[in-house]
């Protein structure tokens, strides 16, 4: 048996044949990046390769970097490895990375979701021998309601708040979830954004992603004049002094974790909306099956439980040690 296509080092996932890393967490010479979230696109690498769709946000976040873009599906030879990027459906521009060495195909999923959110390039299954899958929500208690149902639920909440003169404050991660929410909702009033969200909006709009009209909240914004507004902001800002200027408000948090009542209550928000950019339990099963892979490496989430389950299903499953966070960081990390 020849050398494996990918190995797992203390810097992250490594391809010996191509001498590059994928989403490494320590500085390396050449990094292939699945998407722009902070735990995947880290600063300090000598060279970056990411999809054309993901690169503007990565540049926006990391500043001056030596980076190159690549189209979905475009094949590129790096040393002895042939690589290509394929839509992961996680957020606009996000990718799975396919690596082929001597006819052996491995795929690194990055973060992914199966459903089409109407904004991100929809997930495409990539046949492979070995699949490296995240499993942030790899427990059977995590199944997502349809986007349509959640949108209706948020719209109703927004409308009820507007009718009672309350601002609707929705906590969502500033890259991905925030834009997904604003584009799936039926406006019941103006949409206001926190600066962190608006900065991402500007980058995505410039790329041509269709986002609705939004108003960035600045110190000069007369928020009280904007009746019936929905404010989309990073969750951490909702309990801060920044949030107080909106007067009477109802708070909501949009995340897959809101599926669990205990976590919902601990967040201390009025409402929790179950919507995630990660695959739910049925989604994970479906994707893993569709790759045709026999070897599954799991990372990012309930890895011990999920790998045990996969082994019982007849896969050859193992856990990749990561510094992404792993099982325990799941709730506290950026994953949502």
């Amino acid at each position, binding site marked *: 048996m020849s050398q494996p296509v990918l190995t797992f080092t203390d810097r992250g996932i490594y391809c010996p044949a191509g001498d590059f890393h994928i989403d490494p967490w320590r500085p390396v010479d050449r990094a292939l990046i699945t998407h722009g979230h902070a735990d995947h696109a880290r600063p300090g690498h000598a060279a970056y390769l990411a999809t054309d769709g993901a690169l503007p946000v990565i540049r926006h976040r990391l500043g001056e970097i030596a980076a190159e873009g690549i189209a979905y599906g475009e094949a590129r030879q790096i040393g002895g490895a042939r690589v290509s990027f394929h839509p992961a459906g996680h957020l606009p521009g996000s990718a799975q990375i396919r690596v082929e060495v001597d006819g052996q195909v491995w795929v690194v999923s990055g973060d992914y979701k199966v459903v089409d959110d109407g904004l991100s390039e929809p997930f495409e299954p990539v046949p492979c021998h070995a699949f490296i899958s995240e499993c942030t929500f790899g*427990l*059977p*208690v*995590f*199944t997502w309601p349809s986007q349509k149902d959640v949108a209706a639920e948020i719209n109703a909440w927004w409308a009820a708040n507007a009718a009672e003169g309350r601002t609707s404050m929705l906590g969502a991660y500033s890259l991905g979830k925030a834009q997904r929410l604003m584009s799936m909702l039926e406006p019941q009033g103006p949409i206001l954004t926190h600066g962190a969200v608006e900065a991402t909006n500007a980058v995505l709009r410039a790329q041509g992603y269709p986002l609705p009209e939004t108003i960035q909240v600045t110190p000069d914004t007369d928020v009280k004049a904007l009746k019936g507004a929905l404010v989309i902001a990073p969750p951490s800002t909702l309990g801060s002094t920044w949030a107080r200027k909106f007067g009477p408000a109802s708070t909501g948090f949009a995340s897959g974790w809101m*599926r*669990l*009542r*205990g*976590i919902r*209550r*601990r967040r*201390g928000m*009025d*409402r929790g909306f179950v919507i995630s950019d990660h695959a739910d339990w049925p989604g994970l099963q479906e994707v893993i099956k569709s790759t045709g892979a026999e070897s599954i490496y799991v990372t990012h989430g*309930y890895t011990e*439980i999920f790998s*045990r*389950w996969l082994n*019982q299903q007849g896969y050859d499953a193992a856990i990749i040690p990561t510094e992404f966070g792993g099982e*325990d*960081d799941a*709730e*506290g990390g950026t994953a949502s």
Partner: protein
Amino acid sequence: MKRFARLFTEIDQTTKTTVKTKALADYFTQAPEADKLWCIALFSGRRPKRAVTTTNLREWAAERAGIPLWLLEESYPIVGDLAETIALVLPPPAQASDHSLSHWINALRGLHDVSLDERKPRILNAWDQLDTTERFLFNKLITGGFRIGVSRKLMTRALAQATGQDEAVLAHKLMGGWTPETTSYHALIEAEDPAADQSRPYPFYLAYQLDEAPVTLGAPEDWQAEWKWDGIRGQLILREQAHHVWSRGEELMTDRFPEFARAADFLPPGTVLDGEIVAWEGTQPMPFSALQPRIGRKTVPKKLLREAPVILLAYDLLEENGADLRDVPLSTRRARLDALLADLPSDAPVRASPVVPFADWYALAVTRAKARDFRAEGLMLKRRDSPYLSGRKKGDWWKWKLDPLTVDAVMIYAQQGHGRRANLFTDFTFAVWQGNELVPFTKAYSGLTDKEFDAITAWVRKNTQQRFGPVRQVRPEHVFEIAFEGIQPSPRHKSGLALRFPRMSRWRHDKTPQDANTLDDLRALLAAYG
């Protein structure tokens, strides 16, 4: 069930008491009577008798969900609630239905009449007709502990809003041994005769902890002091030749404490006393550890009756000659209590808990410091002109406890909490030194702030040395001050002792594990206070 699920969702989506009360009041206005009665029952701690074990539920749910049992078991601690875990793993309902809350409760009660084999298809059938929220509630009816952010007090207030009745009157009506099987909504709430149930106790008045100096309470002559006993709060009721003993948690304890049968020999019918049940030896209470073996036992062996006989140390008279005295000032109630108990022989199962005389607050503080010598936990301060209120109300009754005992201990095991605390490490095991070995001696769950729980949780995740199922052994690095109310010998524990009400009073960032206390230190406390 949809109406009840909607009520639950409205309550669950808010932290505002007014919104919860309004939702409940609406429910009490609109729901059918049988459902209203069950709703009152559930929120006052009553529930249908369990017909299915949780083991059965887990097995059936896993089978129905098409997952192995271990996967459901692994999911449970992460979700933090079994009823919820099961509701979440089950496939969507095959046929929707909208039967009432009482329909499903009756279905559960019907399970007692059929064999185990027949129970399973009935439960599966129920799951198949209920959506996720309804299933969660249905499962909660089986697994018990219906705690969803509605206190009994809040429910009573909502019922008062819906019926226009006085809240305190309703609170009294809801006391006692009724169940939805033995009464109706009309008989319980609407009927005019509150004396219908001769065993019915009065709602207990509960004291607040005094956190400031007693001088803030004003003139000492307005206050009465008593010892605060470490026993079981109880109400002794003598009516129509029968006697009843109630705990504060509204549990009927009459059979558990047969000593009180003789109370009727000394006291007239129409008497209700409030006091503390303690194990008694001649002139003073025994330590709480003597009473403990009697708490769990429904029938008491003769030996135990001999070793730990109980009495009621009475401190209030709520009913005399059948008349409700609760609106009479404490000073008058106390005088009548003393008169009533004055001539009782020393072997009567009731004694007056003495009033502790004091000239000024300073003198009382000196007396309080000696509380442990009297087997008391501190003092109670009660305003002399106060009526007997119901529930926990600030202002007239205060408990002024001794400072707790404390030791510094090292955290060695951690476990995740449940419910709101799921996914947070909140349950810890602590150890003290014996030579070079750390000996576990107590667990503690409370006392830290949310921020501190977050911090310790992050630390536990990075410093786990070994896992034993849900329990993690962590690097012995952090020292906590453990506060507790009492200490007693315990052959069941490796350390040979057990603490009463242990909690984490401080995270000692300033101490290293070497600074923690020793088992010998604990043994010295045991010798002094056990």
